[in-house]
């Protein structure tokens, strides 16, 4: 089936089975491997993208549901002001360890800052609890989100 939507503000046209998840359409049909496969069940957040500005799990979104919508992936998130700030913060404090989950983390954080530009600690943990970091870079994920939001720096390192 043919489907049309936008990815990172560019119109795309794909011919795919209706139930093929957006995750695999991005990775296999559109050559955008930044969105990661972790669980295929909406449990780890590695595949998080923005659909019409909202953080969604691409593994749980059949391509037919993406049709007609605006999809932003890690490859394009820096075009959003918050996305750029998140990327800068992620790099500045070197959030990743293995790095596999980090695209999903940044996309969930972008979804968070879109609705809550200055989130408190509980809001950050709540919004990010759908994203697993197996290396447990969580202290830096919290810190980078605070930095991107312009909140006072809290490292989590203090003795």
């Amino acid at each position, binding site marked *: 089936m043919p489907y049309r939507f936008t990815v990172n503000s560019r119109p795309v046209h794909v011919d795919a089975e209706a139930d093929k998840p957006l995750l*695999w359409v991005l990775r296999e049909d559109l050559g955008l491997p930044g969105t990661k496969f*972790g669980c295929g069940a909406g449990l780890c957040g590695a595949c998080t993208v923005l659909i019409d500005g909202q953080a969604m799990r691409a593994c749980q979104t059949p391509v037919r549901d993406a049709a007609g919508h605006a999809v932003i992936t890690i490859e394009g998130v820096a075009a959003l002001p918050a996305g750029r700030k998140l990327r800068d913060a992620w790099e500045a404090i070197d*959030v990743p360890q293995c790095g596999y989950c980090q695209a999903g983390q940044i996309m969930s954080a972008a979804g968070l800052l879109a609705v809550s530009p200055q989130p408190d600690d509980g809001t950050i943990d709540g919004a990010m609890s759908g994203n697993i970091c197996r290396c447990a870079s*969580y202290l830096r994920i919290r810190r980078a989100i605070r930095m991107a939001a312009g909140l006072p720096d809290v490292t989590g390192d203090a003795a």
Partner: protein
Amino acid sequence: MSAALPPLDRRGFLVAGCTAGAVLTFDAAMALAETPAAETTINAFIRIDAANRFTIGAKNPEIGQGMRTTLPMLIAEELDIGWDQLTIEPTLADDRIFGRQYAGGSTATPTNWLPMRQVGAAARQMILAAAAAEWGVSPDSLTTAKGVVRHGASGRQAPYAAFSRRVATIAAPDPGKVPLKQPAQFTIIGKPVTGVDTPAIARGKPLFGIDTELPGMLHAAVIKCPTHGGILAGHDATGALRQPGVAAVVPICSGQGPAGKPDALAVVARSWWTANKARALVVPKWDNAAQRGHSTAGYASAAAARLAGAPESDLYRSGDVAAALAGAAHVVEADYAYPFLAHGTLEPQNCTALWQDGKLEVWAPTQNPGEGRASTAAMLGIPPEALIIHMTRIGGGFGRRLMNDYMVMAGQVAKAMPGRPVKLLFDRTDDLRHDYYRPAGWHKFKAGLSASGELVALSDHFVTFGAGGRPVRAAEMGKYEFPAAVVPNCHYGVSMLPTNLSTGWLRAPMSNALAFVFQSFLDEVAEAAGQDLPTLMRRLLGEPRELPAEPGRPVLHTGRARGVIDAVCELAGWTGRPGSPGSGRGRGFGFYFSHRGYFAEVVDVTMTDPTTVRVDKVWAVGDIGSQVINPLHARHQVQGAVIEGIGQALAGQKVEQVDGEVRLENFHEFPLIRIDGAPREIAVSFVQSDYPPTGLGEPSLPPVIPALANAVHAATGRRLRNLPLSLTA
């Protein structure tokens, strides 16, 4: 991961790190993947271009432990260039050129600390020789900094690149004889350096095994026998092969079953999604009756029966434990247990392979490419040299990818599809069900205390898994497990149960479980003696000295152990036995020595309700020798390991078996710790000691688990002796 290291002398470093004679060479075949025409290869690890930019080869797999950054730091330091002057590339996997390429056992730092520096220092010496010849001066009259050679007397200076043509005519020095910098001269080592791939990660660039993309590539999904050890008895692939895009269904061996008997099917298709869906249309028949009797419940009752009797064999025996227990003023007894664990790397197991003209080219997220080469070559019946292995970045290792089942399987599928690259990918269920699990274990402890509170007797009956008197992989305990050597009457005995499950190394293997049982039980002993655990540990450790160790195994130095214990108590403001049952707040302590690293940790918890633990803060102090190479990544490693350990204790992780099968489906059944379970603060500090630098991937994990269990005891009065910790039972 438990492989013994060579002795830590200069010769050992050389042999371990770089194949003799191959350290410095101009053979382009030995260079980084390929040397562009405009660049000069100085040795197998270093290229320089006309603009005086350097390409440094990173030889070890990168699993998030930072070695793709750390090892090039060592080369760049001694080459004496600026960190902003270089680009880092992974080398090919070829231990004939690069020495052992391995991400396990926290071995990369101790085995590469000198060899990688020597690689850089030898290249610098060659550049100096070339400059000296060019300028007609003595090499001793030259200095370097940031990739520039200077002649002080004349004020002359030139970038390294100016000598690259002449360098090619300079004989490579003996790397063991090149002078190295003194620590005071370091400009890169010891400075915080961010990860070399971080910008690419933050931009979603393809880096990982799963991102491998090749022209004409096919995709494979796997159907594996649901019981480890079972085999394929037959299959009907008609339905799957009728699906558009499905190319083949190929019987393969995972290596987990008996040799030569396929135990899996690979469904090969134009896309992974198509292959994945077509799996449901394949009808496999398994021969696995022999494995059906294995179950978690069966293991538990068999273990209980063994613990009720005498151990099958002795591991360690000193003095007369029975007499000492009979004469003890207090006897403390407790049974501990821990479950099988999966690794749950976030990037599922995968490998891409291309079979062409009797050779196999592989793109693999493997921690252990050398073993992958050997076992894949053996499975395919080709010489090991017929494999080319590209090391991709790895989306989490934790020991899972020390095994190479995915490479062995991808190789077989590729061989069945000659000329077409094939990417084989597990889904999450495959990954959880076909892991090499951390083995479960059971311990029955007895300790005897004298009237003055000395630990005079200790016995442990350890029930583990094994056959024929040999433990399965990662199920062993060392005979000198602390505190054997410092207790006058001590007996460790072992009994073994059979299992069909494949087992393997999980970050800090053995230690991640033994730290929990020993440091928790010693906390009970300390309590019975009216002490706290740091006090008991100091008394047990005694004067600074080396304790006995098995040949080739790391030696515990009591002074170094004491150093981190004292430092963490100081850092956390430890003031004796903390917390009071019923207060809802508690503090616990744990120490462990593993992988040559010493760590002592303190955990503060609050009970948010009677059965829910919140970890508030953790203090971790380590001794990993004279130099922390990259303090930024060192802190990240420790913080990550601490949170992982908290997850093993509190997230509810366990792998269970019914009728021989692991039936886990996804992360809802094997929960990993999430951000809301992470403490808000983890303080990390290092004690510098006069020993060679050692690794950090593992040793900070084990002590947090008993420290947490001991903190829960302090807060609630309840002693939790089983992992995962549960207050609802």
